[in-house]
């Protein structure tokens, strides 16, 4: 199911006279979506409304955003730039990071915050390149989180020698939905997109593609073997994020990796 849709069911529409914005298309009544209310989840209000209303107007991600701001301040105080690297699973983030570390070792002091639902497989692949690595297994949380949030990154920071570093690369959990929602305190967001994913992905995951300053278009070495419509992809990407920078790359052959490293250096 596409994420970019109007929410038709299950949601009621409150017109509470607060004005100032337009409302969506009227949403269906609860009766229109009974299958979405198992065991009466929508309806098991045990209370009668007293009619008294308490104004709240508080952002639900407020706590995350405050922690993200604290992370950002901590990076800045240490003179470190942080890049939040996102992608779907298998797009090539870890391979790109390996190539990045092997090229930049000796030039930049790099820390990696590695988000993974389980295992240290990715962190293991990055060992031996002189970078400082802090692993976050998000599986320890409430059923396993599908993204890194600001408190998780905050918990990883004490495990990195920030004052000794120039750059922190935050490898997010492979997922095109949730990581786009959570500010972790990065200075820039970039994503790795693999051409094996199909050209329609920017339209299906517009929030992710729009959140990034840079899209690394990876696995370009496979182009001759795929029915991939590169122009169609670029057209879709520009509809969603006209300002995105684009680097064509193959982490496997090394194509474009220097351009990516230059982009990282330019953040410093």
């Amino acid at each position, binding site marked *: 199911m596409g*994420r*970019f*849709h*109007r*929410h038709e*069911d*299950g*949601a009621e529409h*409150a017109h*509470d006279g*607060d004005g100032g*914005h*337009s*409302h*969506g*298309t009227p949403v269906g009544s609860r009766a229109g979506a009974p299958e*979405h*209310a*198992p*065991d009466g*989840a*929508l309806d*098991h*209000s*045990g*209370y*009668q*409304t*007293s009619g*008294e*209303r*308490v*104004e*709240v*107007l*508080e*952002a*639900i*991600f*407020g*706590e*995350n955003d405050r922690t993200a701001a604290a992370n950002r301040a901590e990076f800045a105080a240490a003179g470190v730039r942080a890049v939040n690297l996102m992608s779907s699973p298998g797009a090539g983030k870890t391979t790109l990071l390996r190539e990045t570390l092997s090229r930049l070792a000796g030039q930049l002091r790099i820390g990696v915050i590695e988000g993974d639902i389980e295992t240290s497989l990715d962190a293991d692949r990055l060992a031996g390149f002189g970078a400082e690595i802090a692993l976050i297994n998000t599986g320890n*949380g409430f*059923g396993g989180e*599908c993204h890194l*949030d600001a408190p998780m990154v905050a918990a990883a920071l004490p495990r990195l020698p920030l004052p000794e570093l120039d750059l922190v690369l935050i490898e997010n959990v492979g997922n095109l939905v*949730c990581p*786009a*929602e959570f500010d972790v305190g990065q200075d820039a967001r970039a994503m790795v997109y693999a051409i094996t994913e199909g050209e329609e992905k*920017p*339209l299906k995951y*517009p*929030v992710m593609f*729009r959140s990034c300053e840079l899209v690394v278009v990876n696995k370009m070495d496979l182009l001759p073997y795929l029915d991939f419509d590169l122009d169609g992809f670029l057209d879709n990407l*520009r*509809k*969603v*994020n*006209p*300002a995105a920078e684009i680097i064509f790359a193959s982490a496997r052959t090394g194509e474009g990796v220097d351009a990516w490293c230059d982009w990282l250096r330019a953040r410093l």
Partner: protein
Amino acid sequence: MHELSICASIADIATRHAAGRPVSVINVRVGQLRQIVPDTLVYCWGLLSEETPLAGSRIIVETVPARIRCRSCERTADVGDLPVFACAGCGGIDVEIVAGEEFLITSLELADAETGAESETGAGS
């Protein structure tokens, strides 16, 4: 999706504002560009709130369509169902999002303490 952890944040905020009073409805405003599925949010709330002083309350979601404003020609328009962030008037790509990124609790509706279920009153901390 992360609706379950979002419900934990909602519970924290609502509990603080309710200050021990029983709550019947939590009104939540969700922009179209937030990747929140209202059904899932409502369902997760039923699960998560069960063990809290907010048990018995329900979430009502108000959705806000995405709107963009073109900085070149000043035209403002709904984005619609296709995520095209360019001006339909002049074709300009220098647009700003003016609505659709909301994600907040707007208000709580309090329950009548007399009919309020079982022992929840005063349980807030």
